């Protein structure tokens, strides 16, 4: 199973007064595209239109170069996973997964083999005889994924697939999605309002806000170099980084970025993401000897004075953003190009 290339050409989506600007977007085969936007921005409508469940008001859709605008959903080979699972309540887990296989006329034997393979891949073998009503949210969403994957979709469409889950389960399923994508090389379109999901899962991220497609790019581009005031405001000023974790023993780990390493609370290993709220980063002229465990020297690359508060970008590298009061800015006499020290506590680092 390998992914298809999708192209949206001036696609128009409308529903009862709601309307999105014509959407043009190309998704290469094998890409994990995350569309972020606030709840109610029409993201579900876009997915349903791609799946053929809604008719576009205008524009065209191409899958691997062939136009599919008028194709009914059952002939598009897209897998759809809704936020609230939508398992068929009258069928067992195994029957749910096999539903698409039956429709394709597979024999009983083949169906069973494929269902078992999928169940093994998603770790849901013990659930096969259960009814959907008896499953937890995380289990149900794994089953929904298996059901969608069963038909070997050319396109996997995920509609806020993790939003209804509790934080721990969400984290685990995020790992499942990442592994599935790596293993199967599928084209995935995943819509969400959660920036962490976009940052951790996406090969590419598209930002939709107020009916407009504002920016498409790698997660780093979108979150570090927003192309407009709108995107910057929407994604917020965040210190988002990716690095390798190395446990230190006795309850701490060190996270290695490009040139520096950061101490964090907890022991873990492997790739990780972190964010630090700008309020948590303290600036000073001299090195700080305090309880803040992370302290770096850097150069100020930008100052955005917003009246009572000011945002100061300090390149260590990487670039950290700190928010300080206008008063502090004046009293410390900070200028772009100057050297300063930044510090933040290990407990202020949010790992994800």
């Amino acid at each position, binding site marked *: 199973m390998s992914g298809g290339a999708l192209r949206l050409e001036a696609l128009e989506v409308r529903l009862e007064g709601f309307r999105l600007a014509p959407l043009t977007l190309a998704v290469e085969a094998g890409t994990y595209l995350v569309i972020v936007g606030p709840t109610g921005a029409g993201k579900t409508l876009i997915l*349903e239109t791609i799946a*053929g*469940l809604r008719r576009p008001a205008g524009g065209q859709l191409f899958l691997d170069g062939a136009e599919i605008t008028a194709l*009914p959903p*059952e002939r598009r080979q897209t897998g759809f996973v*809704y936020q609230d699972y*939508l398992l068929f309540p*009258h069928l067992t887990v195994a029957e749910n997964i096999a539903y698409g296989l039956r*429709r394709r006329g597979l024999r009983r034997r083949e169906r069973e083999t494929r269902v078992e393979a999928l169940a093994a891949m998603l770790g849901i073998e013990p659930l096969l005889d259960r009814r959907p009503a008896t499953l937890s949210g995380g289990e149900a969403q794994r089953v929904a994924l298996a*059901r969608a994957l069963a038909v070997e979709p050319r396109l996997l469409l995920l509609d806020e697939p993790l939003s209804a889950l509790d934080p721990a389960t969400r984290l685990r399923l995020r790992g499942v999605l990442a592994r599935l994508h790596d293993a199967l090389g599928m084209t995935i379109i995943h819509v969400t309002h959660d920036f962490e999901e976009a940052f951790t899962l996406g090969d590419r991220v598209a930002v939709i806000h107020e009916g407009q497609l504002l920016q498409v790019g790698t997660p780093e581009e979108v979150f570090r170099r927003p192309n407009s005031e709108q995107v910057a405001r929407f994604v917020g000023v965040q210190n988002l980084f990716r690095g390798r974790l190395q446990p230190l023993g006795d309850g701490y780990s060190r996270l290695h970025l490009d040139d520096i390493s950061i101490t964090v609370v907890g022991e873990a290993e492997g790739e990780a993401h972190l964010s630090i709220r700008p309020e948590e980063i303290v600036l000073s002229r001299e090195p700080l000897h305090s309880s803040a465990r992370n302290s770096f020297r850097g150069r100020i690359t930008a100052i955005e004075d917003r009246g009572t508060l000011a945002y100061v970008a300090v390149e260590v590298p990487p670039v950290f953003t700190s928010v300080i009061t206008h008063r502090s800015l004046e009293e410390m006499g900070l200028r772009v190009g100057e050297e300063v020290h930044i510090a933040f506590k290990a407990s202020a680092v949010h790992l994800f």
Partner: protein
Amino acid sequence: MRRRRTEPLTVLFAALGGLLLLFIAAPLLWTLGAVSPAALMAALGEGEVRRAITLTLWASLVATVLALLTGVPLAYLLARHDFPGKRFVEGLIDVPIVVPHSAAGIALLLLFGREAIVGRLLAPLGLRFVAAVPGIVIAMLFVSLAFLVDAARDGFAAIDPRLERVARTLGASPWQAFRSIALPLAWRSILSGMLMMWARGLSEFGAVIILAYHPMVAPVLIFERFEAYGLDAALPVAALMILISLAVFVLLRMTTRRPEGRVR
């Protein structure tokens, strides 16, 4: 600790409501009590009674099946689509409930009678409506179809339409999505609608008697015996039919019982 008594208002309302419940229950219990088991068996032994009851059950069943084939698709459309005039259609379905039964019989006769337009059209197919079983069936169908269509529509409307959308993305045609998802999930509602319709069909008298005094259905037989021989002659058949209706009704309540007996 002193306990407050039940509110006097609740007592008053219970008394008033109890009167109404008594008014429903007493005639039925009285009728069943007035007929000895031996008299019931004797009535069942009469060929005329057995034929009338069998005919009633069958004719109502046929009417229910006809409504299943046409009314369930209609209910599905009403639950899934918005279209101009939808409210009018929903209203039209309920109209037969309020049309006087004898007037409904006259109206059907006007269309399906021997000399009438549909009657003449279908006569070559061997379908006669006056004084014939098909007439009984359409009379029952007319007065009772709303019960099935309304129940089926509510059943379909309660199913998340996205379940069928998921089925479509998994390769199901619209028909397959209907048959494998919507129909099984609405089945309980449809079944209880069918039982209600069947029971309502069994009960019809006015529309049937206009179209077909003969062959005689049980409600007409009750009337005829009452007219010809008086109350005592009609009583055993009436008791039998009340028992049959109650049985169907208990079946109906069992299909609509909430699963696992949860308190609302």
